[in-house]
């Protein structure tokens, strides 16, 4: 059977502005991002026959397709677990196109997390499991749930706040090069980080991603079709989802080894089907809702050993020119938090050679979705 490897390519990317508040609603923003991505690809809306998005996406396929004038759809899917679904949207489309179920796929995410409600504030729609075991005690927000693992991680491996600062700084430095980033003109210093207010100790303000309004989309076609498109194709080299045995989502406190997670599962599949190794990755876009997810992901995706994720960030390793330039558009921490879709588009920009913080000669890129929830990941190559 022909596999997924390099069978499809991302040929169009689009995005709206990113801001704390955008006046337009999520549906309108979704339409704008999708049309921008199709325009970038040079493909007419009527040619689209596949869609993929997140279960948390408010705009459904019917609304989007009829608004922007898509063709007859023969494949549409939605992926769960919030930001864990980002890369899986592309993966599902790649699988659909590679197996002949569709020819032109669009993945998108539109979200008003900047001006809209914070999901954790909802007290009427508590999920019975696992919320009954955590929320009554005041473990209310994703940051509280991840901070619990972060504290244990720091205790077990000697990781420090300076390691987390290295992550925040790398993302901010890249955002300072990216005019589209929310934090474009806002440099970060170690003093600002170390004296900022706590959100959930041991995580401070700058360990948390932004709250952003915005939308992004990308277009996926077969490698044959990709050759006729406007831009250099960015091939989907390998793709994986990951839900480990006995995993519990962000409150992964109830198994043998809570400090490993979905990244490890996704990584095993990703590398098994790839022609290159972690050492060959030129640039990485790693899901960064919280800085503490980066050391875990660096371990999970095989860039270092267990417990070495903190130390890996030392010596400018995550900066341009370092061992693994990270989140080169600024990531969720400093460009925009749109459930990780900006990481996908930034990966495409790097492999086109058009990033605002271009890694010279970048030919391979890892993109990951949220760690700490059932996740997904992509290896892209030019």
């Amino acid at each position: 059977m022909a596999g997924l490897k390099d069978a499809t390519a991302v040929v169009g990317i689009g995005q709206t502005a990113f801001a704390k508040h955008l006046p337009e609603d999520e549906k309108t923003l979704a339409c704008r991002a999708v049309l921008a991505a199709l325009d970038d690809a040079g493909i007419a809306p009527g040619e689209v026959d596949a869609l993929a998005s997140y279960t948390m996406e408010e705009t459904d396929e019917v609304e989007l397709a009829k608004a922007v004038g898509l063709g007859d759809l023969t494949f549409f899917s939605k992926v769960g677990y919030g930001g864990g679904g980002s890369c899986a949207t592309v993966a599902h489309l790649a699988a659909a196109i590679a197996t002949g179920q569709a020819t032109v796929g669009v993945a998108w995410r539109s979200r008003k997390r900047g001006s809209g409600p914070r999901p954790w504030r909802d007290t009427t729609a508590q999920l019975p499991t696992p919320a009954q075991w955590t929320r009554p005690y005041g473990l209310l927000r994703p940051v509280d749930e991840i901070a619990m693992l972060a504290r244990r991680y720091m205790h077990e491996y000697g990781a420090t706040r300076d390691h987390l600062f290295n992550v925040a700084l790398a993302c901010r430095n890249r955002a300072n090069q990216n005019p589209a980033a929310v934090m474009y003109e806002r440099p970060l210093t170690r003093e600002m980080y170390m004296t900022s207010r706590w959100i959930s100790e041991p995580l401070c303000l700058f360990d948390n991603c932004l709250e952003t309004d915005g939308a992004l989309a990308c277009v996926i076609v077969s490698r044959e079709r990709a050759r006729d498109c406007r831009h250099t194709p960015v091939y989907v080299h390998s793709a994986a989802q990951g839900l480990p045995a006995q995993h519990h989502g962000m409150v992964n406190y109830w198994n043998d080894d809570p400090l490993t997670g979905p990244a490890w599962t996704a990584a095993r599949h990703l590398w098994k089907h790839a022609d290159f190794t972690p050492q060959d990755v030129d640039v990485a876009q790693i899901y960064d809702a919280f800085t503490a997810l980066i050391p875990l992901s660096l371990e999970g995706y095989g860039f270092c050993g267990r417990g070495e994720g903190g130390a890996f960030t030392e010596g400018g390793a995550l900066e341009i020119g370092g061992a693994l330039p990270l989140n080169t558009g600024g990531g969720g921490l400093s460009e925009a938090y749109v459930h990780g879709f900006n990481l996908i588009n930034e990966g495409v920009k790097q492999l086109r050679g058009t990033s605002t913080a271009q890694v010279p000669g970048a030919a391979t890129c890892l993109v990951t979705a949220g760690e700490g929830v059932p996740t997904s990941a992509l290896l892209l190559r030019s």
Partner: protein
Amino acid sequence: MLSPVTDPDGAPFWHYAAQGELRVQSCADCGEPRFPPRPCCPHCQSFACEWRQLGGHGRIWSYVVPHPPLLPDYAEQAPYNVVVVELTDAPRIRLVGNLVTAPDAPLNSLSPDRIRIGARVQAVFSGTGLPQWVLERP
């Protein structure tokens, strides 16, 4: 304050907790304890279960100290602690809770700088049947 929004799997835990008993679901066939509760045993697939009483001793596995923005009832008490306790007689069962100075004391009754990973703790129960934790050696 939020009350546990329970489900058929979790209801027995809260039923026993209201009586001051810390019990966890265990497989009635292979004996493996499991948490959170679920319909069948992930080890042997048996649907038969029992609720095993535990001694209520444990150690702090990790903790956080949340600061606002939080829900109003919690913001009033912030910064407070939330701990994960690893149970002595069921090491993979880790319960989320609060480390307090006495049963029904506020979430912020114990100064966060008194908390250490590895510290021995003992379960107590609030008047509403919520398990809480106190330091064995205050």
